[in-house]
């Protein structure tokens, strides 16, 4: 019973997940890149991306998902995102101030790249959030359960 659960859920769930997970991921990416035009942004998008991986993990069991993306790569992704964010903020020193937002400016609003480095910030945030939350989830739920088995 427990083992069948570890291997994933029923066929219906698996099929639906297979069909929707790409869409969820795409929606997350859409939200990230349109954060400055419409509601949403790096944070919500990052959580949605993490949720799509969690979805795979819950439907297909942990082996299938962890093969694609494991704990240490999630943590590396989060660190990389944080470093990118900090570096972007420090690039502002060129313009004179920490966090200055100066390149790509002077364009009309309502364009995808209308506003300086905000989209790049959004991507960095989504990396931290996606990686960090996925790492938290794996650490809390999956590895913890695996250890309970070995006891």
């Amino acid at each position, binding site marked *: 019973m427990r083992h069948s659960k570890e291997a994933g859920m029923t066929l219906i769930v698996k099929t639906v997940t297979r069909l929707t997970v790409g869409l969820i991921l795409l929606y997350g990416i859409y939200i990230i890149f349109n954060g400055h035009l419409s*509601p949403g*942004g790096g*944070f919500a998008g990052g*959580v949605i991306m993490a*949720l799509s991986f969690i979805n795979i993990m819950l439907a297909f069991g942990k082996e299938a998902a962890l093969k694609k993306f494991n704990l240490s790569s999630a943590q590396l992704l989060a660190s990389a995102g944080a470093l990118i964010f900090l570096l972007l903020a420090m690039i502002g020193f060129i313009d004179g101030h920490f966090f200055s937002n100066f390149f790509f400016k002077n364009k009309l609003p309502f364009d995808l790249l*209308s506003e300086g480095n905000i989209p790049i910030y959004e991507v960095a945030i989504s990396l931290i959030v996606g990686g960090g*939350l996925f790492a938290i989830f794996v650490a809390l739920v999956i590895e913890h359960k695996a250890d309970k088995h070995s006891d």
Partner: protein
Amino acid sequence: MLEIHLLLIFMIAAAIIAVRVKDLLSSVVAVGAAGLGLSLSFLVLKAPDLAITQLVVEILCLVILIRATIKKDLPFSASGRWFFNTLITLCFLAIFLGAAYFSLKSLPQFGNAVMRVSGIYVENGMIQTGSPNIISAIILDYRGYDTLGEVTVLFTAAIGVLAIVRKIGRKRET
């Protein structure tokens, strides 16, 4: 604003159920309902960014809490065992609410935010940052430093959780 009052009453009811119910799983589900009520309240209060964020965060919290609590709802001692302590807590909360009531009286009325600084954001935000979404303009440009703090908090929590779930904390050879 009738909607917001109804939503608040719904949230209070969900919270009371979450506090009172004996079964942990039901409690988690009830608090999830309160979170969805919060998401709807954000929508009613014209904060769509927050509604989306609250919704996805709520789902994630629910998944984590349910996976953490499932099959573990062992019986636990009832909270009303020490009548005296409960009485003190209720007294404290009553005093808190009473004091809050008096201090709320002198705040600006609901629906009349002053917008001393925010007026500047609304006025110049789109031209100065190029972002039509003023929330994005604030969190990533005007107050980008706060967002650095925010992502650092999340990063801290991730590393903290990884540190806490280690199986062996100390090396044991002495």
